[in-house]
């Protein structure tokens, strides 16, 4: 059992509102973990600041008493970056969800870190604009967490990562100093861009409390198609066609039949095709009059086995739920060991053909669910725990097998974590993608900004 210094607790009781901190067992369990289920949640205290000033005073206090703090957003992360398993104080931004009015001519909106992604979408949507970072967990995830993890998602092929949609940040450092980085400036070439340093830093350098987000126009009407193809080579062949097609693709997602079966089982949805296929592609495009001819040409050249086109917004949502329901369905119907890797798109085919051999050697006959964002070279690989295997044995086995896969990733100049981050989960694998020099520089930056190491200790590196 971890205990916090009495003087620290007394200072919190003295200096903050009555409902600022909680040791309620439910709160400790809830706020101590994210969507990973590998580590046991064991925080000592959860705090719920309402203002940047409260965050600043809390961090100054924690720094003075050498108390570890885990910044926490919507806790939908998949790398245990927001997990508190060593008696830390969890700093939840959930109460900081204010959103300023949308600046239509500037195309920006200023929000607090705890604003929910989907609520920000609706807020901007009232002005026919959007913040185009979009992913399955948008109903829970928070802006601060998105930025701290440089979240990706399903629209990266069209809009890029979170990094491209953040103009300004307010960040509280470990000692309580507040930095205002960038403001609402589109252009600001005045030395090293510190704002970018905090985007994707997983809470180890500072706590993001507010952000000025860049907005863009809402896309027009969209068409959603689902294709059935024979194999990953077919997925890649079709992608080459999409790249050259007279269409504006919003998303190009693929998943295997293993994923589809789990989703249909968990969500009791109707199957999209009469006969199953090995691989499926979900394509979303801006509606245009060239689609019909393009589709006809795919069939003429036998690039797809079958396909459906959503006839209504409801059908479009139904097709999307086949893709967006995968992660949740895998966890609800079994225990997945997740990997989120990326490769240069050009290397995907060579990589996956070698990967099959690794799977056959390491996981003979196991169920492996693969899906991902082909346009970004991003594969989500989920090895499902066999029903008759204990959790600990399964994790140990998977960890061992990961090494073979990561070596293959490194050989093809890929990344061992494309969009989920490193957190606690992928820490050991970091050297497969980042060199010793790079990691040393990261440590040096950490030492400058957080010399006592109180911010999210143990995440990314020890």
């Amino acid at each position: 059992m971890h205990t916090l210094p009495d003087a620290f607790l007394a200072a919190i009781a003295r200096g903050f509102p009555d409902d600022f901190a909680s040791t309620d067992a439910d709160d400790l369990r809830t706020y101590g973990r994210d969507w990973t289920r590998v580590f046991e949640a064991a925080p000592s205290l959860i705090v719920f600041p309402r203002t940047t000033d409260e965050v600043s005073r809390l961090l100054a206090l924690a720094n003075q008493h050498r108390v570890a703090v885990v910044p926490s957003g919507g806790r939908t992360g998949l790398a245990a970056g927001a997990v508190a398993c060593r008696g830390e104080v969890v700093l939840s931004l959930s109460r900081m969800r204010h959103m300023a009015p949308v600046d239509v001519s500037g195309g920006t909106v200023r929000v607090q870190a705890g604003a929910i992604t989907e609520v920000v979408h609706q807020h901007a949507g009232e002005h026919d604009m959007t913040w185009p970072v979009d992913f399955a967990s948008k109903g829970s995830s928070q802006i601060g967490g998105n930025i701290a993890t440089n979240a990706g998602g399903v629209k990266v092929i069209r809009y890029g990562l979170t990094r491209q949609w953040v103009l300004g940040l307010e960040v509280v450092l470990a000692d309580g100093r507040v930095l205002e980085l960038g403001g609402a400036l589109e252009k600001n070439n005045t030395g090293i861009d510190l704002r970018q340093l905090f985007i994707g830093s997983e809470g180890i350098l500072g706590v993001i409390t507010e952000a000025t987000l860049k907005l863009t126009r809402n896309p027009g009407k969209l068409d959603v198609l689902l294709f059935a193809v024979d194999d990953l080579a077919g997925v890649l062949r079709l992608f080459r066609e999409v790249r050259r097609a007279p269409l504006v693709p919003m998303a190009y997602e693929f998943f295997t039949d293993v994923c589809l079966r789990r989703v249909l089982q968990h969500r009791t949805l109707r199957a999209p095709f009469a006969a199953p296929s090995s691989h499926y592609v979900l394509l979303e495009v801006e509606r245009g009059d060239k689609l019909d001819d393009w589709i006809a040409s795919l069939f003429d050249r036998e690039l797809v086995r079958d396909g459906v086109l959503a006839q209504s917004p409801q059908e479009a949502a139904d097709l999307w739920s086949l893709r967006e329901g995968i992660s949740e369905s895998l966890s609800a119907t079994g225990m997945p060991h997740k990997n989120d890797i990326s490769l240069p798109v050009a290397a995907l085919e060579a990589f996956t053909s070698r990967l099959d051999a690794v799977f056959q050697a390491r996981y003979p006959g196991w169920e492996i669910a693969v899906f991902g964002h082909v346009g970004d070279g991003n594969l989500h690989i989920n090895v499902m725990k066999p029903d008759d295997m204990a959790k600990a044995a399964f994790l140990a086995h998977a960890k061992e097998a990961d090494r073979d896969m990561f070596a293959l990733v490194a050989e093809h100049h890929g990344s061992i974590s494309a969009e989920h981050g490193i957190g606690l989960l992928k820490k050991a694998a970091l050297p497969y993608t980042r060199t010793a020099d790079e990691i040393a520089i990261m440590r040096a930056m950490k030492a400058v900004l957080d010399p006592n190491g109180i911010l999210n200790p143990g995440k990314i590196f020890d």
Partner: protein
Amino acid sequence: MKILVSAKRVSDPNAKLAIAKDGKWIEGDVEYILNPFCENAIECALQIAEANEGTETVAIGIGDDETARFIRQGALARGIDRGILVSAEEASIDSDLIARIYQGVVHREKPDIVLLGKQAIDGDSNQVGQLLAEYLGWPQATFASKVEVSGNKAIVTREVDGGLETLEVSLPCVITADLRLNEPRFASLAGIMKAKKKPFDELEIDDLDLEDTDTKVQIVGLSTPSGRKAGVIVKDVTELVQKLRSEARAI
């Protein structure tokens, strides 16, 4: 056997609608969908056709070119054999005239079964199937949750208050589809391609030799629902009970 099935477009229930200045219709860039009950009727027609070789299925819609798109993509692309569009301005027809137009098409096509959605989800009138059966003098089975066709009759289970009712109707007949009748299939891309080449007739109301083309219902005005009243926070149970009694009149 021959089945005539409805393909009516409706405004998307999730879209925001703007009322026209004269207050009698909607305007602007409205997103339309195929009426979900018509989708159930289409799926039912396809299943009957698949179980009874030699069945011809025909989809009918009333409206303009946009309606034609819904007949093609919503009905023909799913497997209906051919389409008929009767040109009319949707704002200027009522349930009675729709039923009479269908009657005129039935006289030309002579189907054994007319399968309609039980109602359109925008107007919610729920009249066309019943009126049509009356004008044709045919038996009707409305709100169908199960349809079986054998020989010269159809066994139809309908959802009624407090249970199910099973009817046997002789053909020809009118059946209207309820939501639980089936799960409509997706329109396949191959089907969408094929749909472009399927026979498609365009008719004018005048082509149908109707005795009566007057509308009996006039829209006097449309209005949006009044906004929900904001909630209030009560300070204790006593106040809650008092408000439930005096304001909400719930107890």
